[in-house]
């Protein structure tokens, strides 16, 4: 299986491809509308010299564009999630539950929590598919 450098365009493409191929995701996410941006706080010691902005877009089970963006684009998303690199790595490895991480202040969310809860199965599936990607993390490369 191919390996992808975390938080690069190739990694986002691989993630998107996983989702496009997932019939289960398409069914579960049929009610989801809107984009989610992921903001990764800088951590130079772990190979993240500056803030990373990732944009992902979803529409009724279809998958829109996934790309690295600038701050303004990230802040235009319906949901904005931010956190330290190490926290995102824990989420992507399923070492912490994303909902729990939000409640405990390990990640931040700007947006309508009730919408996320109503679609929690979609959120969990997106993370499950991310976890299936063989990822090379900057601090482990």
């Amino acid at each position: 299986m191919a390996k992808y450098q975390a938080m690069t365009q190739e990694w986002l493409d691989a993630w998107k491809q996983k989702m496009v191929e997932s019939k289960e995701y398409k069914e579960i996410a049929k009610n989801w509308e809107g984009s989610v941006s992921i903001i990764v706080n800088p951590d130079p010691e772990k190979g993240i010299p500056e803030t990373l902005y990732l944009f992902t877009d979803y529409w009724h089970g279809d998958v829109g564009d996934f790309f690295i963006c600038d701050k303004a684009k990230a802040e235009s998303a319906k949901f904005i999630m931010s956190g330290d690199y190490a926290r995102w790595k824990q989420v992507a490895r399923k070492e912490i539950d994303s909902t729990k991480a939000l409640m405990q202040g390990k990640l931040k969310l700007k947006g309508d929590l009730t919408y996320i809860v109503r679609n929690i199965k979609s959120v969990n599936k997106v993370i499950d598919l991310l976890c299936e990607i063989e990822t090379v993390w900057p601090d482990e490369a």
Partner: protein
Amino acid sequence: MAYDRELSFVYFGPTRVVFGVGASRDVEMEMAGLGCRRALVVTDPGVMKAGLVDGVLKSLGDKCAGLFSDVPQDTGMGVVNLAADYAREKAADCVVSVGGGSVIDTGKGICILLTEGGGLESFEGIQLLTRPQTPHIVIPTTAGTGSEVTCMAVILDERKGQKILIIEYFNAPRIAILDPRMTEKLPPLLTASTGMDAMTHAVEALQSVQREPIADGLAMQAIRLLYRHLPVCTQNGGDLAARGQVQLAATMAGWAFGNAMVGLTHAMAHSLGAVARVPHGIANGILLPHVMAFNLEDAAESYAMVAEALGVRERGMVESEAAEAAVASIRSFLERIGHPVRLSEVAVKEEDLAKAATMSLSDGAIVNNPRPVMDEQEVLAVFRAAF
């Protein structure tokens, strides 16, 4: 097994608690201890009418920069924005909330806006803040919400017609002053329903998928205190010793659920409040035993702990028997304190139930329920059982 090696949690409880009959008179000294000089006092018309703010205003003297007494039963963003404008106009440097959950949550919203500026609509989310907020002193006039020690606020977004949840560690109240005299005049039904709100916080914290040992300990003690002292308060509201123990139980339950979160009972009660205007504590109280019955297999261990705290776990009972005893005990406790036991008693119409069931699936509390709930028909069945 209660906890395994995967146990991992954050416990957060920074609020200083000042307890005692007459403690609300110390508000000026507590405020001075925070380095504050100008307080905005926030309350509602009912609390004003009951005269509960008088002593607070007297204690504050000229350190009261202004009084905002227009908080409605279910506070909204418009109210918070208006009150924050008033607080800015009065150059307030702290907020003193005197009231129940709606007043306290209004105070929390004002604190954010005094520090960050803007309107509350910009702060919908979780853990967005990055610095301590304006100091907040809370003097509860009910014993139930636990909001005096949590970092959560529930505020109506009038534009969307739905309540939003704001969770911010940086916005937990600095001080909670628990003065039993502030709850002395609560009528029996309000005493019972706010007490059942606290009981529900404790039981749901114990059963939560986010439960942890510190919250469990607080929840267990809250249940013990409520079981012993709440019936005394409903029968003799002037018993200040019992009132104080119930206040402490509500605060402990607040710490417990503020960390471990709540579950399906709250999700259903929030929805029923929106659809049929059932007061939160009453909805929680009626629904709690029915939700416990629904969760029984998935939360037997937790409910056995509830049975221990209630004193109904008899020697030789296996876990499942103790869990069933806990459910039965909560049912009989409702009757003992004069609390309604059926939704039909509190003006809920059968046609409200389906809408409330659908809404429950969108409530943040539901993700912490021990039995996963994905189907609104399951929720509807619980509503019907409670009807």
